[in-house]
């Protein structure tokens, strides 16, 4: 029966959002990511663009859309730093693709699974960043994994609050 097929289930659970949400939520995430560290100082252990990328990739369940969104967010983040443009871009591209690919296969409605995914994808993003910086580009970079661990935990906590809020934006039939 086609009703029980994987494609039907996937089509059924694809979330849709208003066009403004696709534009404003990522922009708000980027602006807050640039502004909040000034207020919180060294305790700004979060990556809002990553959380937003994961949310939309999980909700849309389209690897292409997840990839494009991750690439856009990452390149935008790179543009605000003084590093080469593309380092965060590659990391977020991989994260967007992985999140969407995982979203097809497992039940992402479960809250715990969502948080676990955010935690693991944050670490994957950091690992990709280091790989690109050190191996691909051959640049010197001192790295503190504890900070990345704290950032992953911070992202999970933010996702715990942000995901239910963003769920309210989706278009329901």
């Amino acid at each position: 029966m086609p009703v029980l097929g994987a494609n039907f289930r996937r089509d059924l659970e694809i979330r849709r959002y208003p066009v403004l949400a696709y534009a404003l939520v990522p922009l708000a995430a980027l602006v807050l990511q640039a502004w909040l560290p000034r207020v919180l100082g060294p305790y700004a252990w979060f990556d809002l663009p990553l959380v937003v990328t994961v949310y939309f990739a999980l909700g849309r369940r389209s690897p292409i859309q997840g990839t494009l969104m991750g690439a856009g967010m990452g390149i935008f983040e790179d543009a605000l730093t003084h590093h080469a443009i593309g380092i965060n871009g590659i990391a977020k591209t991989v994260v967007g693709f992985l999140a969407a690919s995982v979203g097809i296969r497992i039940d992402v409605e479960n809250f715990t699974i969502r948080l676990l995914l955010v935690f693991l994808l944050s670490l994957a993003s950091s690992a990709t960043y280091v790989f690109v910086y050190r191996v691909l580009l051959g640049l010197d970079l001192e790295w503190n994994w504890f900070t990345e661990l704290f950032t992953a935990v911070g992202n999970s906590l933010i996702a715990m609050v942000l995901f239910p809020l963003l769920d309210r934006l989706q278009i329901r039939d």
Partner: protein
Amino acid sequence: MESFFIRYRNLLVLLGILLAQVIGLAVQVRQTDAGRNTLDPQDGPGVRLIRLWANALVTPPERLIHISKLGTDSFWQNYLDLRHVREQNQDLQKTIDRLRLEQAALLEDARQGQRLQALLDFQQKYIYKTVAAQAIGSSGSDQSHVFYIDKGADYQLHPDMAVITADGIVGKVRDVFPHSAQVLAINDQTSGAGVILETTRIRGILRGNASGQLQIVGILADNRIQPGEKVLTAGGDLIFPRGLPVGVVEKVVRDPDRDSFVDVIVKPAAHLDRLDEVLAITATEPRFSTEQQQDLATSEALKGAEAAAIKEQKKASEIMAERLPGLVDPNLPPDQQPLHDSSNPNLVAHPPQALHPDRFTPGGAPDTATGTGAGSTPEDTAKPAQANSQDRPDGADSKSVPKAKTKPQQSKPQQFKPQENP
């Protein structure tokens, strides 16, 4: 073939985007003469365009947030929270007066220093012109310690201009946009500033580490470097003027790569994590700025006025002393002096007897030849005290004197009452 692209379209899109970014990265990295890879400090036109777009998109909302925050703070500070302002104002006025006098003296020294430097053909650059700016945003990344200020090309900012606060140096302008600028903080791993330790005069290069701390690298192990020593700019990097505060030495750790070298961890003087207002140094000159010269003139005028006032006071007191009758006329005998009191013939102008004679008491000072000076022992000093106690007008015997000679720690504290004059 068509089915291949449809089947693997997700992966193909991913690979295509990754490949494009890798190529873009390869363009931005170059190799140094030493064979090491480094990021190109000058952005290419494409990269600069992307940065410009990102900045144009993020800066207006950040500016809006910042203005809202400033408005709230201003409303609170200027209208609601005005307690103790009058007292603070008075205190500040006193401080200004004191600092003006100190400044006059210091500027005299600075002028002398300038003259000597001119003789040695060495020109010290002074901060001549600054532009005040507000920090409105950051990179949002732990790996990139840059922040944005709300002044840019419209205020004649240029790359490599020093950015400071009243506390110390902050960083340098890295990129300038039409209405904003990107500042590379001194605690970034790619930053560098020439510094000197204030007392030991050891020079080094300051940069940031992975934790965002400041450290001076490439210093030979030296026991003289102690925590608490001040770190100043050395002036050799052509960005920061000489002598600006950088921070204080927090600790000294071994260089993990080189045995004989140490890394000096520095606590920054400026609050790099919570920057609000900063100053971009737009011009340095081998002379003082107009404002500084005006301050100097004001200080000198005040100093001169104060000296004149003191002189006037002295002169007035001398005139008064000449006009008023003197208490003692040297030309008259003692019994005909203006203030001579003949009603009490027994009055003798003797100082009252001390209850506890010591070495400062008139007539009670011990003989220096006997060695009873400042370093004398309690045994030595107890002797004249006992001798004097026999002559005391209240008739107190030697038992009432604390027995410092034998057991000073066991002597009972005595309560002395004021004695009436016999």
